[in-house]
């Protein structure tokens, strides 16, 4: 947001783009850099925060920032092609301009989590808000007691950030568990749903923070299974999403109960979330 008008976006240039997944609802990742050097320097975001990105003349969408600030002076967005704005975004190639304002919302309290084991449980494009946590922990490995990632999608082609998984498995205090819904030729990881894989892995709740993002149905069963494994509400975090327009708590539409997802969220601990009446609507 610009200094005196929070609705006016900054101009950024797409440095690189690539497809994470294929199909009608393909996911494309954009690496963007602000054009104005002073914006590049003053911008700071935390894992879990979002930004309004868009194209002038088409509109804006709230998209989670899928990189950690530790990765460098750029932003990454992984965008599923869904509606008017995301279709226009998908047409952008390296060198094109993207409008960006933000960062918006609260963030994962990664600093409070220091000294703990981090477990992320993602499904589909839900891995995008989790990726900054993973990158943040990887960049600050001495501060955390380890990182485990469970990630699933319908097919291997629906998994995002595939090229980054191998690196994780090479480190002894990081581990990466992948799963897809249906058996596939050449797939040498797990087959089955994410909540079941969680039960099979049986992670200990001791000194652990778990963060889950993905389709609502997956979240529901992941939460159920986390409770079976003995996780407390305060150890569990997730993000909410609702339709948003302003990003600054004015336009009114993203509320879940008395909480504005754009300001009070998107990150909520399950302890808070279960008290919000509309959270799982």
């Amino acid at each position: 947001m610009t200094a005196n008008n929070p609705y006016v976006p900054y101009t950024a240039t797409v440095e690189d783009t690539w497809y994470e997944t294929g199909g009608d609802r393909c996911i494309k990742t954009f690496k963007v850099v602000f054009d104005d050097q002073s914006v590049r320097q003053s911008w700071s975001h935390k894992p879990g925060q979002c930004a309004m990105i868009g194209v002038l003349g088409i509109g804006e969408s709230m998209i989670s920032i899928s990189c950690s600030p530790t990765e460098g002076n750029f932003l990454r967005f992984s965008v599923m092609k869904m509606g008017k704005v995301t279709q226009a975004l998908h047409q952008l190639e390296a060198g094109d301009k993207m409008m960006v304002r933000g960062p918006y919302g609260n963030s994962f309290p990664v600093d409070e989590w220091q000294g703990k084991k981090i477990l992320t449980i993602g499904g589909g494009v839900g891995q995008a808000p989790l990726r900054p946590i993973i990158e943040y922990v990887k960049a600050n490995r001495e501060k955390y007691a380890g990182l485990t990632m469970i990630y699933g999608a319908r097919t291997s082609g629906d998994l995002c950030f595939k090229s980054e998984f191998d690196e994780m498995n090479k480190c002894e205090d990081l581990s990466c568990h992948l799963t897809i819904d249906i058996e596939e030729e050449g797939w040498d990881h797990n087959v089955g749903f994410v909540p079941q894989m969680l039960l099979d892995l049986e992670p200990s709740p001791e000194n652990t923070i778990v963060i889950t993002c993905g389709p609502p149905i997956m979240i529901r069963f992941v939460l159920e299974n986390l409770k079976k494994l003995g996780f407390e509400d305060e150890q569990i975090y997730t993000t909410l999403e609702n339709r948003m327009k302003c990003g600054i708590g004015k336009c009114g539409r993203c509320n879940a109960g008395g909480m504005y997802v754009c300001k009070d969220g998107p990150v909520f601990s399950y302890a808070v979330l279960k008290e919000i009446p509309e959270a799982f609507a």
Partner: protein
Amino acid sequence: MSAMLLNKEKWPDFIGKLTGKKIWAPSGDGEELRFAPVAEGETPQLAFNNTRVPPKNILFPQTETMYRFQLGDLEMEIPQLDKETIILGLRPCDARAISIVEKLFRWDVDDPYYLKRRELVTLVGLACNEPGLNCFCTSVGGGPASTEGLDLLMVDLGDKYLLETITPKGDALVDTVKELLEEADEASQKLKEAAVNEAGEKISRTVDTENVAQGLPELWEDPLWQKVSASCLGCGTCTYLCPTCHCFDIQDETEAFEARRCRMWDSCMFEEYTLHTSGHNPRPTRRERTRNRINHKYSYYVDKFDVIACVGCGRCINLCPVNIDIVEILRQVKEAL
């Protein structure tokens, strides 16, 4: 604060002195009464109950350009707001609404459009002598001569107006017309008191809001929401006519190469309001939408800003095509608590 008297014969002179500022005043008659800019040389008449639509569009236009640009270009031009404005003859409830909505537009991040217009406007209120049938301002923190949000309050005393300044802006306005005014005497103060008391007594509709803010979340699954929303058409009239409803959409509009990003009033009573691109809708029926509307006004807003986001103007009751009545909804809420 000062109290002055203006003889009604001098009303056209009073208007004539307010030069250089854009004046909005009630215009039209009967059901069509609404706030409109006063043309030069025109003298608005203030004899009315309340306007059919509130003056909220003056500070928060129904559609507002946030910035203009040329398609293919990245330069954004933000409209400059610099015209000083007077809203003349707004009712105390509508002035309270402005001060209530202002809290949100000032919260955390300033909304530059609303706050600039707010800074440029002088609010000249008119106390109510004849409350409307569905007025219930006294139940929600207001009253026929409430001064909250106002810079200057006028009270109709028959052949005169009593003018009470509330803020420095009100003092400044009175200063420009001071040769038309005389000091208010004690008799006129007594007349005011009598008029205000009489008006207060005429307000027949009341709601008991005690414990409603805390209690509403407990009624989340109560059958009352089905009942009170069953006849709702989802037309959104209640929210468009509400002086405190402030929700908006942001859209890009283009015409050839000229384009603008604008915000426009939106309504939580519309299905599309919360509809996700995926097709999922967290508020799929009018039951959830009505529940949200009431909770937002009477619970969420109270939690955040310590004030009910309803001023009891009664417009949503007067003009609901299927006679949904917020006072009745609140009565049922109280009963269920």
